[in-house]
């Protein structure tokens, strides 16, 4: 029946929303904890248009270069997601973990787990706390793969350094909303892919680098490597990343106000960068000229573009409104993805 509901919703979608969903769902259902983005990188490559030539640098970033001349505009979205890394294999066969990125630990407690390997994923569970501790936050989490000894866990293929997440699924909700985990920042990756599919390369006035970056969640590391490489030559940078929205029954409404479904958002002020007001105005003008829905706001979080700022590069981050960030049930509106893809294309072609 849930499938039937999804089918009805799919029939009601416009072709733009359908295409957005097709791209996004494949990205969301791939796994790529920070430092282990290879599966996502392969999905991105598969979804790019045929004319694109990609390069992968030593940091794992995927580059798509287009346009002619000097001084590229960089448009960057990150491929990685939050999760864990196997830090130790304990004598009792359980796995000690290290967080990769920031999130609410209790959301993973007592849930199914997947240990990602080069071959098939190994199923397990995030163990429930074993004491009578009834405060909200659990002690450090451990994972069981059903083994009772270190050798038993190793015989299943577990190794220190592997990454761990919980199983995830892209699911449509009412209207054009959808839920899943790691929309941050697969929405950004999807926006770049959708923009590249419709990009009119003859309109480009300067080179544009579409960059799919690594290790954003653990300190903007992939983008940092790209920024060091391009340095002061960069004309402008647009990080395409989540606008964490207060459009939720649980959030204060004193900032981060951007409604789901009302379009892309200029992330004009966050914890890592401030967009000069004149650039915000220019962006608004470009969106207006093309009839693209745009909201302007301020939220929390850092963005990959901020790694270019020390080189004298202006960062104009763009996003989309996201509910319940870094949780297993992030929510987005597909209409916002369409709007964001249009805006990415517009800043590449018109600015």
């Amino acid at each position, binding site marked *: 029946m849930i499938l039937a509901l999804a089918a009805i919703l799919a029939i009601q979608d416009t072709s733009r929303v359908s295409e957005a969903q097709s791209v996004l769902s494949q990205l969301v259902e791939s796994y790529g904890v920070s430092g282990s983005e290879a599966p996502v990188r392969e999905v991105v490559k598969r979804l790019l248009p045929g004319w694109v030539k990609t390069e992968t640098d030593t940091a794992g970033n995927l580059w798509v270069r287009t346009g002619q001349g000097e001084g590229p505009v960089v448009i960057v979205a990150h491929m990685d997601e939050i999760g864990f890394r196997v830090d130790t294999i304990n004598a009792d066969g359980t796995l000690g973990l290290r967080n990769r990125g920031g999130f609410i630990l209790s959301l993973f407690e007592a849930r199914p787990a997947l240990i990602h390997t080069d071959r098939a994923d190994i199923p397990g569970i995030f163990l429930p706390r074993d004491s009578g501790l009834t405060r909200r936050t659990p002690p450090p989490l451990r994972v069981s793969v059903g083994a009772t000894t270190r050798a038993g866990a190793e015989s299943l293929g577990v190794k220190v350094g592997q990454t761990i997440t919980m199983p995830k699924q892209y699911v449509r909700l009412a*209207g054009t909303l959808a839920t899943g985990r790691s929309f941050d920042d697969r929405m950004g990756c999807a926006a770049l892919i959708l923009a590249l599919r419709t990009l009119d390369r003859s309109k480009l006035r300067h080179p544009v680098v579409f960059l799919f970056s690594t290790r954003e969640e653990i300190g903007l590391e992939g983008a940092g490597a790209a920024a060091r490489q391009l340095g002061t030559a960069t004309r402008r940078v647009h990080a395409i990343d989540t606008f964490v929205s207060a459009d939720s029954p649980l959030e204060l409404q004193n900032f981060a106000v951007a409604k789901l479904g009302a379009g892309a958002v200029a992330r004009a002020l966050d914890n890592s960068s401030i967009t000069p007001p004149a650039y915000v105005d220019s962006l608004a003008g470009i969106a207006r000229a093309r009839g693209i829905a745009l909201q302007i706001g301020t939220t929390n979080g850092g963005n990959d573009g901020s790694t270019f700022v020390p080189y004298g590069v202006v960062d104009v981050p763009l996003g989309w409104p996201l509910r319940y960030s870094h949780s297993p049930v992030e929510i987005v509106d597909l209409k916002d993805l369409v709007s964001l893809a249009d805006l990415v294309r517009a800043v590449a072609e018109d600015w």
Partner: protein
Amino acid sequence: MMMEQAVKRQLRRSRDNGGGRAVAVDRRICFLTVSTAVAVLTASLSAQTADSLAIRFSGMTAVTGYEQSMTDSLLALLPGSVRDRTGNVTVSLGRGAPKRLVYCNLDEIGYAAGNITDDGYITLRRVGGGARLYPLFDQQLEGQRVTLFGRRGPVPGVVAVRSTHLTRGRPTGNEAPFTVDNAYVDVGAASRDEVLSLGISLLTPVALTKRPQRYGNGLLAAPNAGRRAACAALASAALARPRVRGTVVVAFTVQSLYADTAGLKTVVNLQGPFTDARMVTLPSKFPDTPVETVSLPDVAALMADVVKWIGGSQ
């Protein structure tokens, strides 16, 4: 395959030996061997049935008092089964005295829609639990997928959680567990009318979305895996056409967690008296959590034990 080969070997020997008596003996051996093969095959198929039913049942939802969709499945699964007005599913095996009862409890603690806000969120009340409730039971909802079993079919939703990013720089002092009073279910609707149009109304049952996880060597993790695996063992035993001593009523009871075990009492009052009764249960690890874990070989062993009990063995 090994049994088949043994049978063929016996037949070959009988042809080689000739002689009526030897043939008769070999035919008996052949009959016994085939019977053993059939028994082994049946046991193996039953174990498979128990495994697959444990996984299937663990994926089902039966909030106490709202068990109908699971009992629909049981009625379809078990030939000759009936449902009483309380919702219990029973099937009667054998005939005559003694009359005995074997049952499992199939319901679970869950939630029902308690209110729908103007802006399209659904708030909840818990169904079942009480003083025995695991203190972190409700917290297991926070930031997770749920399914709402509405009049037009299941509807996916999520339970709202604060965005990690928006907690930064703000005091987080509240370390009290999340409770059902904090639960806002988001189905993607923007208004009460939109929620109602999805077939969701007050009292719609709500539960964590279930995706049973197999792991390790024959382990199965899922909410209420212990109860569901016990019911799977009972259903597999009933499906195995066991030898029956007297009459055995096999019951899948509802509302064991509410209204003073109304389901079981109904079965006893409608179909009793019984000379003996057995509740089928299975030990589990991590009870009352979404990863309650059972061992699938234990399910098969429990099924075999229930078959014996139905046949009159202790």
